[in-house]
């Protein structure tokens, strides 16, 4: 054992690795890491710019619309092709999985800075009940395009902000960029699950009870600011609660308080569709209707004259 250790501990000269040029490899290594990172970042940015993903469209001047949709993943319930078909107007969605109203406000500001104001803004209001801090760094992919986003990133995720300045590859290490890749060849207007909730999940939903939804003051402020921004630009704002799986809806004990609070703070009526769809087969999981559910939901909204 000892002899093995001694062998490995000797500083034997290596091929092409004499003492004098050993140290040269350190700056070469650092330079290579830096250059590789920048080249990688440049290539990935080029790829991202070719995507049909909604946030790429937003920053590529391809998002002009008459009806703008915002919210978290439940905002995807307003399936764009159905809304366009019913309203006969151009629709664009800024909804994204786990998007809080605070982060959503940043994109809304960017939208209004770049485009003419849309006629209507449909806002799914359950995006003010939780933060998703993991999502904020994921959007650093778009930080080169938006000062608003950079400032927000700096304020909320300081370390990630500086790290993504140091490494450009890091900007593309996120589910957001993976979505960009996914929508390289397909239109993300069609982003809504066609999956039907599993039987196991349906069964599990029967045991749900005392589920709460809580309005977070800071997110409520962002929601109010988003509404004010839209109204100041002459956009009609429609607040909506999209459907929940019936068993989940029954277990939600304080949804009405949540809605009342939003109505009180914004002065707008909330269109509550939380229990509008009763057939579990029209859901993908507890919180999301699938594409078949969306067809029914959009029809109902149209019937109610929301667009």
């Amino acid at each position, binding site marked *: 054992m000892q002899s093995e250790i001694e062998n490995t*501990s000797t500083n034997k000269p290596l091929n092409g690795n004499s003492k004098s040029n050993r140290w040269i490899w350190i700056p070469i290594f650092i330079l290579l890491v830096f250059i590789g990172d920048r080249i990688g970042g440049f290539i990935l940015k080029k790829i991202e710019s070719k995507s049909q993903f909604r946030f790429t469209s937003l920053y590529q001047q391809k998002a002009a619309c008459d009806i703008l949709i915002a919210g978290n993943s439940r905002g995807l319930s307003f399936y764009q092709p159905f809304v366009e078909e019913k309203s006969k107007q151009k629709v664009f969605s800024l909804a994204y999985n786990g998007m809080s109203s605070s982060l959503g406000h940043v994109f809304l500001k960017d939208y209004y800075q770049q485009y003419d104001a849309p006629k209507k803004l449909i806002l799914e209001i359950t995006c003010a009940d939780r933060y998703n801090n993991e999502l904020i760094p994921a959007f650093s992919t778009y930080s080169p395009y938006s000062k608003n986003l950079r400032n927000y990133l700096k304020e909320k995720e300081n370390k990630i902000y500086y790290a993504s300045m140091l490494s450009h590859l890091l900007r593309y290490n996120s589910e957001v960029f993976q979505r960009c890749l996914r929508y390289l060849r397909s239109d993300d207007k069609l982003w809504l699950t066609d999956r039907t909730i599993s039987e196991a999940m349906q*069964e*599990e939903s029967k045991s749900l009870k005392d589920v709460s939804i809580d309005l977070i003051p800071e997110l409520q402020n962002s929601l109010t600011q988003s509404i004010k921004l839209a109204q100041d630009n002459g956009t009609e704002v429609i607040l909506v609660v999209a459907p929940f799986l019936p068993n989940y809806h029954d277990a939600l004990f304080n949804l009405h308080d949540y809605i009342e609070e939003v109505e009180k703070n914004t002065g707008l009526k909330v269109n509550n569709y939380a229990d509008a769809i009763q057939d579990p087969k029209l859901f993908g999981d507890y919180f999301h209707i699938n594409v078949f559910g969306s067809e029914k939901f959009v029809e109902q909204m149209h019937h109610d004259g929301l667009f």
Partner: protein
Amino acid sequence: MFFNSLTFLVFISIFFVLYFAVKGMPRLVLCLVASYFFYGYWDWRFLTLIVISTCIDFFVGRQLSETKEEPKRKKLLYLSIIANLGFLVFFKYFNFFIGSFKEMLVSSGVQTNMDTLNIILPMGISFYTFQSMSYTIDIYRKKLKPEKDILKFATYISFFPQLVAGPIVRASDFLPQFTMDKKFNWNNIIQGLGQVLWGFFKKVAIADSLALYVDLCFGAPGTYGSLHLTIGVIFWAFQIYCDFSGYSDIAIGLARMMGFEFPGNFRTPYFSKNFSEFWERWHISLSSWLRDYLYIPLGGNRNGSFGSYFFIVLFFGISIVITQWWWLIIPGGFLSGFLYWYKGRGPVQEAKTFTYLNLMVTMLLGGLWHGAAWTYLFWGFLHGSYLIIQRLFSSPFNQLLNAVKIPLAIQNLISMGLVFFATCFAWIFFRATSFEDAFTIINGIASFADFNWSAVLHKLIVIKCAFLVLLLLMVEILAQRVDLPELLLKSPAFRVLSFATILWIIAFFGTFGSNAFIYFQF
């Protein structure tokens, strides 16, 4: 302090500058202070325990070498074992046994006021306790001379790279290395750094990415379809491998940069063709510890001892009484009958019987070492069973494969597949928080309900993780054919490019945040 944190990056940078700036005694003091700082960073109270453990074993070691009388030596050994295991049992298992006993009493209709205690489990206690015990046992066996310098011994017990999650390094491997003057060695730095980076790739890029999916899957197993759960279990197998072997790689690499040579802890375990091979490739430092300090003293594969029967009866007894699964009496009865029938049927059969018994006891204790839960014990039981079944049926199985003239490469693939499948099955119990959850997962997979791609959630994570796992396997296959550490030394271009590639991959695929290593809890 986690390896995968900025704090550690600052800590290790300062440490290395100081380490190579000083020599002799100051360097030893630096190692000890740094190790205690590293450990105390979590909670300084943990240091008390490690200091007490160190003092006891140091003085027991000295006394053992000076004492000639066997009864006195035995007493000293028992003192060390009882003290070490006492700490371990109290901090790790006290609440488990009290809680289980209380449950048993309550379910039998007996009311009790027994309360569990609010005990914090000191990180890495299982690792340094086993390390410390090996020292006194080796001195008792006269395989090792006691260390005279308490500073060296304390540094051995608390050496920060491998303190909290191994590898469990024997004193006979570690202490002699202190005597050598460790100069700055370029080769060690390169190979050590390579291993550290590879460890970070496994942990940050693979294990933590897989964790996102696995946590969801095991968090609510009843809500997912068959394919989703199957992917979750396979990902879990790779998560625990990458998490733990990643830590080992970082630990061994850091030690190597300092000039210390540690034995490897993992050797591509999922390429194993049988279960014995699996345990020669998985957590090698623990399996060899259990072999040398438990399996062989129990009699190994030669004969049995009182301990063999004692442990097996103890396990069955406790399991039956606490779980109240009275049906366990039936397999227990069968086992006893089998042992009785086998015993006295010639030396070979008798030896085999004891081999099975000793294997089972070793694996059960190995399972319990991981944590105070019945699921860990059952995981150990499954692996014990696999080893026994393999010994019973490997010959007819191989004969069958040969008879149908399946090419060797295909035979190997079938064997690897079977071992991987059985290992994944056992991993379900290791990860699940209860038997109920484990059986929900097994039933969910076996039902084949929603066994289709569209029923799989988080597809983007699945695709990313599958790519990373394939990358890992490709590099591991390559590493079996090419001596990568040697290539790192020989080719500066390969070295620079491979190090840079790992950094780019970590930047692009890594999951960042303070994700603790899984084995910290053990």
